[in-house]
């Protein structure tokens, strides 16, 4: 029975690789191959990034006999990335999956339902943590770590995955337990998550300094790791070939996983069957309503959808918070920023000259993290019949999704943009060009997100995490945007000697404007027809 449930979970997770969500038909072999190749490319890109970093860090640490510190760092990053990368996915997979009640109504022991979902969670956790751990283990071998350590490190990858799964299941349980009690939980969840992300990014941004400090401090840190970071320390020892550390980490992981599964199994039914939101009755108070136009009504519907879901806000709107945070930091550190620029002006004036381009590339990078329009078509789900049966055009429905994307993105971009042009003391023309290009880029990404969503719709999801963060559309938008940011920021170095920076920015403005217009035409014509036919 367990293998049947696990197969079902994997079919759901990887459904879009084998089934075209728009037609509901199986993909051709070429189509499946293409999807797998795209996935492999993404993983290879990320693995390459970590290989580069671990080779750099490892060379110093391993040569100086501090392999334990190397694996403490790798283990910490793998676990943190694995946990934060999958905690909300774990919550939605375990506790708010659409088929929880259906499965509970069948003669299936609840702990097997839970276990099958945990297996799925573990696989996703493996992707997040494995992308860090595997390069770390291989780099250690390449740097002279020896074959026993390679084998043990690879075996430990499985247990790191279990460890991450147990931690995310616990955190997901906390989120679920809070959800049952809280009203308006989406915003509270977002605030808590943002606090956690803030801490996470604080350490990531200081990682370079921290690692340097760690490398200098070396063995004096060992007692600290042995006490506060005992589990990670044992993992590190096991990965260097120490059998005792290997055994201790595996034992701790298995014990944690077993206890977690036991506790979750005891509370699983109560949590998934308790209605979310406030159990107290909210008595209706009649209020005056205002007549809104259909377009405003559709826009407010989109806003309500976005703000009702912590998963949606945190994944597709994370950049909004980042942009405001960067603006605040820019104001706080404006003096230092100007000092640095003044220094560059003397030592390397080219950097100052291309500053508007670097700013634009940074905006693009942050902006694509707000892919609000991308999952919006799929998120209509089984309720799409409502707008399809109303006297509104598909074009109006799609434009409402685009408008939400643009309004929220432009608001955040305006805050950041105006702050930065003042702090960086850009010229008027450069400032206008950069901001105009950013706004046009936002219009373009709004339309591109709809294009992706209409080309790869998935209305039949069991958790909203599927269309929001597990879809090919979301991956294309994020990765494509990052590559575009790199292209915008990188190509300037090839042309800076013979092309004015303002002309360079203006070219990108025109490119984004043309792309936006082409996509607008497609979305409002062919895209609207696709939307009308979705079911």
């Amino acid at each position, binding site marked *: 029975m367990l293998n049947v449930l696990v197969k079902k979970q994997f079919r759901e997770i990887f459904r879009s690789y084998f089934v075209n969500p728009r037609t509901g038909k199986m993909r051709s072999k070429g189509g499946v191959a293409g999807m797998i190749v795209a996935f492999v490319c993404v993983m290879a890109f990320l693995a390459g990034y970590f290989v580069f970093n671990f080779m750099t860090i490892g060379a110093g640490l391993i040569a100086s006999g501090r392999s334990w510190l190397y694996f403490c760092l790798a283990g910490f990053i793998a676990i943190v990335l694995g946990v934060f990368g999958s905690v909300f996915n774990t919550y939605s997979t375990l506790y708010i999956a659409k088929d929880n009640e259906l499965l509970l109504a069948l003669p299936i022991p609840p702990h097997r339902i839970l276990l099958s979902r945990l297996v799925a969670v573990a696989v996703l956790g493996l992707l997040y943590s494995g992308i860090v751990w595997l390069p770390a283990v291989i780099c250690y071998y390449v740097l002279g770590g020896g074959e026993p350590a390679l084998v043990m490190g690879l075996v430990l990858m499985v247990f790191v995955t279990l460890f991450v799964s147990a931690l995310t299941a616990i955190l997901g349980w906390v989120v679920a337990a809070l959800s049952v009690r809280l009203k308006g939980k989406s915003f509270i969840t977002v605030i808590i998550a943002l606090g956690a992300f803030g801490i996470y990014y604080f350490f990531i941004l200081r990682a370079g300094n921290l690692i340097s400090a760690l490398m200098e401090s070396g063995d004096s840190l060992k007692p600290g790791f042995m006490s506060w970071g005992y589990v990670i320390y044992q993992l590190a020892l096991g990965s260097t070939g120490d059998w005792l550390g290997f055994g201790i980490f595996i034992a701790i992981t298995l014990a944690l996983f077993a206890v977690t599964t036991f506790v979750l199994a005891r509370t699983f039914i109560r949590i998934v069957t308790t*209605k*979310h*939101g406030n159990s107290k*009755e*909210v*008595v*209706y*108070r*009649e209020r*005056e*309503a*205002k*007549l*809104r*136009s*259909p377009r*405003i*009504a*559709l826009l*407010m*519907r989109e806003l*309500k*959808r976005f703000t*009702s*879901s912590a998963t949606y806000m945190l994944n597709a709107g994370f950049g909004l918070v980042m942009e405001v945070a960067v603006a605040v930091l820019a104001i706080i550190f404006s003096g230092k920023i100007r000092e640095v620029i003044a220094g560059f002006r003397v030592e390397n004036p080219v950097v100052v000259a291309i500053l508007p381009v670097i700013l634009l590339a940074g905006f693009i990078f942050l902006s694509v993290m707000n892919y609000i329009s991308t999952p919006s078509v799929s998120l209509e*789900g*089984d*309720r799409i*019949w*409502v707008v*399809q*049966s*109303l*006297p*509104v*055009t598909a074009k109006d429905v799609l434009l409402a999704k685009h408008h939400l994307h643009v309004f929220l993105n432009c608001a955040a971009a305006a805050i950041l943009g105006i702050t930065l042009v003042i702090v960086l003391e850009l010229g008027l023309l450069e400032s206008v060009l950069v901001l105009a290009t950013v706004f046009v880029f936002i219009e373009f990404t709004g339309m591109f997100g709809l294009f992706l969503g209409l080309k790869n719709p998935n209305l039949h999801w069991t958790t909203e995490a599927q269309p929001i963060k597990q879809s090919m559309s979301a991956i294309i938008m994020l990765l494509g945007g990052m590559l575009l940011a790199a292209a915008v920021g990188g190509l300037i170095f090839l042309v800076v000697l013979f092309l004015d920076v303002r002309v360079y920015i203006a070219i990108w403005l025109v490119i984004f404007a043309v792309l936006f217009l082409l996509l607008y035409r497609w979305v409002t014509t062919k895209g609207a027809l696709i939307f*009308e*036919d979705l*079911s």
Partner: protein
Amino acid sequence: MLRIEHLTKIYGEKKAVDDLTIRIAPGEIYGFIGHNGAGKTTTLKSCVGILRFEQGDIFINGISIKSDPLGCKRQIAYIPDNPDIYDYMTGIQYLNFIADIFGVPADVRKERIHRYAETFGILKNLDQGIVEYSHGMKQKLVLISAWIHEPKLILMDEPFVGLDPKAAYQMKEMMREFCDRGNAIFFSTHVLEVAEKLCDKVAIIKDGRLVKSGTMEEVRGDASLEDVFLELEA
């Protein structure tokens, strides 16, 4: 009011609806009966403009659903068999959304919402999230959303499923009153006793084809509707 002319809908190689012709006049409650998979939902969804069809046409008060779908949708309301609506809204937010789309003035909608919500007994629940509603409460909310903009034609797919007896009685009263004002209702049901008592006319569909239609007296004669249905299904 509603004219379905030679409607044909094909899924792959299967004809879900085959050359269906039905005419519904103002003031009629028209029942639509058939076995599971007979083509009832497909027909209703085609009338609403949710499904494209290969042949034929559908006219609502003379307006073709193919050439002017918005014109048709402004005159109709659709109640599906499964009331999947926006669980991220409260009941009143959903009703206001529907009312905004149809341009129902604020004072008018307030009175109608109060009246229908009180009739169905969910007035006090309107500020609760739809996610907390039972199936029956959602069904009632969808019914209210259909009535508040006063359409000319209501299309309903098994509307009595999930309703408690009191709500089912009240809905029958509302349906009769609605059609007595010159409007029309076209609904599918498996509850033949209700169809017998409520409908002015009935159509029986089998494997996508119309097998019998007419007034209740013409269709059932001296037998019961159940007997007629079972005989046709045999």
